[in-house]
């Protein structure tokens, strides 16, 4: 077989599957906790309970699934073997441990020097270091020097920067070795995580996978190259500007640069969407399209959050909350809910049936989960995210609580399908011939 056929490089499913399982559980736990945080979140984006839920979502849900998916995707898209499955396992358990301890520390006592904060922070740091080492050591062997791969590798560096800064902020709370308001450092930490880690990664992986699922060809790859330059340059300038010269006009120009970069990525995938072979979208791709709608809300609220226009001063806190929610619960959650159906069934299908196709009648990957359940959580998700935004804007606690119930339903149905796929029992029928 010629080079380019990469599925033989894929790691053992034992590396990937626990990430999907723990991710689904974390999403459910965060949804339940969101119900009890409704009163806090309508008024503030800081505070122990909010940071507790936010860290379960960011680390236990989003980062967990991203790590798992990347252990599968890096070998597939870069056509290399994963550097170390052992490191991936240690990173996984460290991430679980870190998420639990950090959540507990935030929920219990906001930011303090308690033991749970120290253990949690250290465990997350170890997990990220191991992931980054694994990703970079795997990537360095690739002969596929594509722009998508460059995005993925760059995102790993920004992740390291984000987590290092997070640790630095916690240490600075107590030891005051940087003469800077910690809220200013926090802004750099948050934006680095959002633009450097999440967006860079989404652009890299999305630009590889979405055209593949849409089966679109002959796309203009210069859009991605321009996107890379604008988002990275803009992100770097944002960090420097926030630290040294937080000038409103400069920040506006920088924010517009980053947004332009993201829009080039959107244009690339919009072209793929228009060229798609399958006109009728399955639930995975429908959720992906919804994710892009929330990306626009994230861009608008993120822009307003960074430049803080005077005429919106009274609702600036609400804008910040909408920015976080549209990104974490809107864009990223929708993307993960959808892309689970485009990755996990294939991983299990290959494991169970990869060497049996042709010899037996085997189900298709889409037969491994309940489409009815998937469609139900598509609607419950849309209800949940719309309600939470209404709740934030109107500051009505009960609306946020109803939204949390819809999120619990979404997470339960999503979890049902995730575990249905993971624990799928082989179904073989003899061929007629």
């Amino acid at each position, binding site marked *: 077989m010629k080079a380019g056929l990469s599925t033989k490089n894929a790691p053992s499913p034992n590396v990937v599957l626990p990430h999907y399982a723990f991710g689904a559980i974390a999403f459910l736990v965060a949804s339940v906790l969101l119900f009890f945080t409704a009163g806090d979140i309508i008024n503030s984006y800081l505070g122990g309970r909010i940071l507790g839920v936010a860290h379960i979502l960011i680390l236990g849900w989003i980062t967990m699934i991203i790590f798992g998916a990347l252990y599968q995707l890096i070998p597939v898209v870069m056509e290399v073997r994963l550097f170390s499955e052992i490191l991936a396992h240690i990173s996984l358990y460290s991430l679980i441990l870190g998420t639990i301890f950090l959540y507990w520390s935030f929920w219990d006592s906001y930011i303090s020097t308690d033991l749970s904060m120290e253990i949690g922070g250290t465990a997350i740091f170890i997990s990220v270091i191991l992931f980054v080492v694994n990703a970079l050591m795997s990537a360095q062997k690739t002969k596929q020097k594509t722009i998508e791969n460059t995005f993925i590798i760059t995102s790993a560096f920004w992740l390291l920067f984000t987590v290092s800064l997070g640790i630095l902020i916690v240490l600075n709370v107590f030891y005051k070795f940087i003469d800077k308001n910690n809220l200013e450092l926090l802004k750099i930490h948050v934006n680095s995580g959002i633009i450097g880690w999440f967006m860079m990664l989404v652009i890299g992986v999305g630009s590889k996978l979405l055209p593949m699922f849409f089966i679109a060809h002959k796309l203009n790859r210069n859009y991605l190259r321009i996107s890379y330059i604008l988002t990275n340059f803009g992100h770097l300038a944002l960090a420097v500007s926030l630290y040294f010269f937080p000038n409103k006009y400069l920040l506006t120009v920088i924010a517009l640069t980053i947004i332009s970069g993201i829009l080039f990525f959107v244009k690339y995938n919009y072209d793929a969407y228009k060229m798609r072979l399958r006109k009728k979208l399955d639930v995975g791709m429908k959720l992906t399209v919804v994710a892009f709608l929330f990306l626009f809300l994230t861009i608008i609220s993120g822009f307003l959050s960074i430049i803080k226009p005077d005429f919106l001063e009274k609702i600036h806190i609400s804008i910040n909350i909408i920015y976080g929610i549209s990104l974490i619960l809107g864009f990223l959650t929708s993307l993960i809910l959808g892309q689970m159906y485009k990755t996990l069934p294939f991983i299990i299908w290959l494991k169970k049936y990869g060497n049996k*196709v042709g010899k037996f009648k085997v189900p298709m990957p889409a037969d491994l989960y309940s489409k009815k359940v998937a469609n139900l959580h598509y609607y419950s998700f849309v209800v949940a995210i719309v309600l939470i935004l209404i709740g934030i804007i109107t500051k009505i606690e009960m609306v946020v609580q109803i939204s949390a119930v819809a999120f619990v339903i979404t997470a339960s149905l999503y979890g049902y399908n995730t575990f249905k796929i993971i624990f799928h029992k082989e179904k073989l029928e003899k061929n007629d011939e």
Partner: protein
Amino acid sequence: MLENLSKTEQKILENIKTVMDPEVEINIVDLGLIYNINHNEIDKKIHVTMTLSARGCPVGDAIIMHVETVVKANWKDYEVTVELTWEPEWTPSLITEEGKKTLNL
């Protein structure tokens, strides 16, 4: 592509039509993934040249194995090889009329 196939090679092509692309859910012949079939009666060899719709396709191995298994099952005395090529690159223009109907293109 797929021109001047002998009757036997056309039969082999019909066998390969039972192989489905798990993502698009149409058979890989109508998707235009099969570039050539060579049947050599004297040496008892069958050689299939095919492509995939994208590099890094997560089910690429399974599709190729499926082709090999299906052909072997029907041509038991033959040595069957399946070669993956990326040249020319697959484009939607290779989809057959039948495939276009299935996909509502």
